[in-house]
């Protein structure tokens, strides 16, 4: 049975080098979420300045 080494090397988790999900889908997710965030900010600002009537 191997004993734990105090100097065992450590590395940082990394994303796969080539991935359709990482390279194509994730950026689309970022953009979609960003657009939704901006839309909600605009609506809230509209409520604040009276352009959007809250009920």
């Amino acid at each position, binding site marked *: 049975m*191997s004993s734990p*080494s105090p100097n*065992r090397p450590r590395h940082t*988790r990394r994303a796969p080098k080539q991935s359709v999900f*990482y390279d194509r889908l994730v950026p689309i997710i*970022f953009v979609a*979420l960003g657009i939704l965030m901006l839309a909600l*900010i605009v609506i809230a600002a509209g409520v*604040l300045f009276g352009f959007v009537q809250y*009920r």
Partner: protein
Amino acid sequence: MSLNEFLPFISSIVMIAFAVDVFRRFARRPTHKHLLIWGIGLAMFGIGSIAEAISAFVWNPIVFICWYLFGAALNAGWIGQGTVYLLVRRNWVHILTIILVIGSVIAGGLMLTTPLDASKFSPTVPLSEQYRNIMPQGAPVRLTTPFFNIYGLITLVGGALYSAYLFWRKRVLPNRMFGNVLIAVGALSIGSASTLTRLGYGGLLYLGELFAAILMYAGFILASQPAAVEEKAVEAQPA
């Protein structure tokens, strides 16, 4: 028990567990102020959910005040401010906190002085669909919620997306990237549900709160995992 009575209880449990977890981490690392501010914001979210759950059975003006003040108005701004502490290591962040505290006190004062019409309350109707009947039209406190919500959207959602983007661009720590995406999605779900409520469609608020609680907690756990992993070195057995 109907869905409207059941969902707030589930959200409350998740949010309380989340807030307790965050406060415990802050107790272990008291220099991490973002954990304290997050904990305060999450506790507000939890109080709002508990108030909703109670209101499904009985009317109480203090409970309604807690629901609107903590659940509808303040929590987004406070959770977002925690993200600001995480991402921005500058002294001026404390000034934003002071402004947030002053704004919260003002909102609290306005809420406490808002007359409530208990005769319009019905326990069978979700609070999100009847609150505008209970509060007077044009109540000043309702004008404070867009400030906190806008600030929360920019800081919490924007901060989570920015963090996720950084990890994506560097192609490191995919768990933190996904964790931040989950946090952003969770925050946007409650933001969307709140916006619909404000526009007169309050039926989805409880669902939005539940999604927010689960997704944000899951994202937090995922993003909080240690950065480095030890290589599992296989050592040859001695002869």
